[in-house]
């Protein structure tokens, strides 16, 4: 029974592969996202760029807004909860959202523990910066992993760092002899059985998407070329000057991520991308990716 439930959770993620999941804060944005070809929308109270600017506590989106989004679109509706906030997740499950993102973009509710996600019927996606973190989240029941990147920065550098780290660690594990896996499990702080599984299969046991700072069609194509199986775009769309066009262009770029002629077409006449931040010069305390462990 538990195994079947997990198959259904990862099964929905399989259906999202090769697609773009877009952050939306109201029904109108969700309509634009669906019209542009998004495979799902992610409901949240404010996009990461605004959370960063305005500060304060960022919580799950208002129920009214999520309901309005559910009424507006026929694609899956995801919503974010604070790290460790099981009660917010229970509320979203009762609302029958299709996926829950236990997200570092919101203000963490628990600085030590993430949600026990196996206890839910709704699937969860979680962020990770490296393979150990990805496997800890999967151990807790996440059915989909995304890179954390640096949300709201409009800068792809962290998403690239994280997808490279995850893919590199997977490749490395696959070359190790069985007797070295326990020590790897200890070093990574990851469940031994999952480490063995990755070493045996040469891939994560759940789909592996990318998120955090993607702002252009070329950014999306880059993380796909590096091994991501789909992308989340947050502030990048609705903080640009022409969201409809940019959303469509990013969708097309993800399908044709290996076709430079199509990428050129996608990259033309897009209006201005969001401004973006230099992550390297940011204070540690301003980083969202260090939330969770």
């Amino acid at each position, binding site marked *: 029974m538990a195994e079947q439930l997990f198959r259904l959770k990862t099964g929905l993620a*399989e*259906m999202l*592969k*090769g697609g773009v999941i877009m952050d939306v804060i109201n029904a109108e944005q969700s309509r634009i996202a669906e019209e542009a070809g998004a495979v799902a929308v992610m409901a949240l109270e404010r996009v990461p760029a605004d959370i960063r600017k305005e500060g304060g506590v960022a919580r799950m989106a208002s129920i009214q807004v999520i309901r309005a989004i559910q009424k507006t679109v026929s694609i899956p509706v995801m919503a974010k909860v604070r790290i460790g906030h099981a009660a917010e997740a229970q509320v979203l499950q009762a609302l029958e959202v299709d996926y829950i993102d236990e997200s570092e973009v919101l203000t963490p509710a628990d600085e030590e523990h993430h949600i026990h996600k196996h206890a839910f019927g709704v699937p969860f996606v979680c962020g990770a910066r490296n393979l150990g973190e990805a496997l800890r989240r999967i151990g807790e029941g996440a059915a989909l992993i995304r890179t954390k990147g640096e949300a709201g920065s409009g800068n792809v550098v962290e998403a690239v760092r994280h997808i490279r780290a995850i893919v590199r660690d997977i490749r490395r594990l696959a070359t190790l002899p069985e007797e070295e896996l326990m020590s790897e499990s200890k070093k990574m702080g990851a469940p031994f059985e999952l480490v063995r599984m990755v070493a045996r299969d040469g891939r994560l046991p759940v789909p592996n998407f990318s998120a955090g700072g993607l702002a252009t069609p070329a950014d999306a194509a880059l993380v796909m070329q590096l091994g991501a199986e789909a992308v989340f775009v947050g502030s990048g769309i609705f903080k640009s000057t022409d969201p409809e066009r940019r959303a469509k262009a990013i969708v097309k770029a993800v*399908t044709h991520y290996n076709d430079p002629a199509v990428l050129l077409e996608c990259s033309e006449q897009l209006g201005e991308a969001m401004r973006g931040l230099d992550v390297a010069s940011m204070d540690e305390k301003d980083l969202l990716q260090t939330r969770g462990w």
Partner: protein
Amino acid sequence: MAPVGILAVQGDFQAHGKALDRLGTAWRLVKKPSELNGLSGLILPGGESTTFLKFLQEEAWFEPIRRFASSRPVFGTCAGAILLAEKVENPSQDSLGLLHVTVRRNGYGRQLSSSVQTVEAEPELQIGPEAGAPLEAVLIRAPVILRAASQVRVLARLHGQAVLVREGTVLAGTFHPELTSDGRVHRYFCGMIADGN
């Protein structure tokens, strides 16, 4: 046999590739209409039907797929089945109209209503090493076939309702045989190709 094409706009196209690998059937991914040339059959995988639809409309795929289906087998699962249908509800949307059925999107509800079920399969699906075993259907935000024209053959049912159907060269399932290791549905599709229809 020429390879089978798998539409790779988005969705679980790789899972279909693995299912064909297990049967030793050659395949390749298709992202442009011109790539339909030289294929023996075409699979429209699971994914999001609205995303597929925008893509197929914008890149002028409707006529090439219809022409393809007039002489070679096409198989759609879940979103693929929605695209093949004559009529789509919840919401109403455009479709290829190659299969005379009416489907209702998200017919069972949202993700919490997704399930794995055992379905009743017709004798012609009882082929290969799994013959006779129960046929498992993975239903993920699955559509429901509300009505089917008389020329549509029902190959599998769940609680009396059609979940796998065939009309001439077109095969469609509301579930995902590509997400199980049971090769019967893909084997049946390869049989349609081998029979030359």
